[in-house]
């Protein structure tokens, strides 16, 4: 039996081992991804992002608890934490907040180190999510690294993106900056029992008033990709992100939050947004693979010494980086 067949049969150890292989980008991992891909497309992918310390992990814990108790769904959680830029090591601590979930065979938590990737996810996160999807998990929750302002890769991966805020983290200028707040399908103010919650809500509310109706447009390789729905003035087609207040240590606000998530999924299905997001996600993935393949072919094609010599030329200010690339690529990759 191949590893993919074991996974489709529900073998958890095989699943865990394949995740490692895919993280390490091994040939066996790639083969399995090819076999599993036809089985994907069934899961609702939920992204959870926000600044460090806003309570993302505790929120994910509560969400998963709710889905298990009230809706009896199988849940996978992918929790990404940063790798050290110096040693490549990492401490992955999200499980500390998710101890309520252990012992439930229908919850599978996997911690991932970002391994040098800067968009808030690891390079292999999309593939890990695909495997969970194929393995039949109904909901895959992806928690990003504690994100600052521009770690927005999650919006290209998830169907529904939750941006988690906490009181006291920023004023209304933060709220009108471009970046992370723009990608929110649902805004969560966690730790809503803390002082300052009214101000946080007011700032987000005014941001939403300014912003809507907005299109979701990604800049990707210089071209703009829009994931807005076709909206000939039909105001019902526009999703305005709701603001949900939660206290995830106590589970307050969680049922309301899951209702918002369900409404968003429903909205995507009715408006055609679901298909658009699927398309965007797969397109981004294909492009990333092309990138990687071309880069590999370039490395095979251009001897390391030639590359080093060119770098030296640039270092000496003899030629510009543009000129170096032109010469290196001259007549290649055709």
């Amino acid at each position: 039996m191949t590893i993919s067949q074991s996974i489709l049969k529900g073998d958890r150890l095989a699943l865990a081992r394949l995740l490692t292989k895919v993280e390490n980008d091994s040939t066996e991992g790639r083969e399995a991804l090819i076999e599993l891909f036809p089985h994907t497309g069934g899961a609702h992918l939920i992204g959870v992002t926000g600044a460090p310390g806003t309570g993302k992990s505790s929120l994910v814990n509560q969400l998963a608890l709710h889905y298990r108790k009230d809706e009896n769904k199988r849940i996978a959680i992918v929790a990404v934490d940063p790798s050290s830029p110096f040693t490549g090591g990492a401490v992955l601590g999200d499980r500390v907040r998710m101890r309520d979930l252990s012992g439930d065979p229908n919850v599978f938590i996997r911690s991932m180190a970002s391994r040098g990737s800067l968009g808030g996810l690891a390079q292999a996160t999309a593939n890990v999510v695909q495997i969970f999807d194929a393995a039949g998990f109904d909901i895959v929750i992806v928690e990003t690294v504690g994100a600052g302002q521009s770690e927005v890769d999650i919006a290209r991966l998830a169907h529904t993106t939750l941006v988690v805020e906490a009181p006291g983290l920023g004023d209304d200028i933060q709220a009108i900056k471009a970046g992370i707040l723009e990608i929110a399908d649902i805004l969560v103010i966690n730790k809503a029992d803390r002082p300052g919650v009214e101000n946080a809500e007011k700032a987000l509310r005014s941001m939403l008033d300014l912003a809507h109706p907005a299109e979701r447009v990604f800049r990707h390789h210089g071209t703009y990709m829009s994931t807005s729905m076709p909206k000939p003035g039909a105001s019902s087609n526009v999703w305005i992100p709701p603001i949900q207040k939660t206290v995830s240590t106590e589970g307050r606000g969680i049922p309301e939050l899951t209702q918002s998530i369900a409404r968003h999924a429903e909205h995507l299905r009715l408006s055609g947004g679901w298909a658009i997001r699927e398309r965007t996600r797969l397109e981004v993935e294909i492009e990333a693979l092309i990138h990687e393949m071309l880069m590999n072919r370039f490395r095979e094609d251009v001897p390391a010494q030639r590359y080093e010599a060119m770098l030296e030329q640039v270092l000496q200010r003899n030629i510009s980086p543009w000129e170096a690339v032109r010469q290196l690529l001259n007549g290649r990759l055709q």
Partner: protein
Amino acid sequence: MTEKKIRVLVAKPGLDGHDRGAKVVARALRDAGMEVIYTGLRQTPEMIAEAALQEDVDVVGLSILSGAHMALTPRVMDLLHANGQSNVKVFIGGIIPDEDLQRLKEMGVTGVYGPGSSTEDIIRDIQSAMAG
């Protein structure tokens, strides 16, 4: 191609609440380039084995200062075996009397580290256990 990273689960089974040592070790392993999954206090052997499976770790490090190591360790080892993870190396840190060392080794524990152990030794032993 990405290189294979050593993945380590650092867990504190039992009821003692002293996790300073576990955190120091976690940090040191991180600085040695390993990926450390830290699970926090008061883990049952079942929780530890479950996390080791989901995370597909190479190494489980148990921090035990309560004196319950002779009860907790075999339980964790049995569960790892039952889950098909006999390949996982188990290391123990904490207050372990000398007379228990031999029996822990016989259970299949790879290394035991008492007070005053250096993190360099732990790192070196993990690396050589992975290489061997």
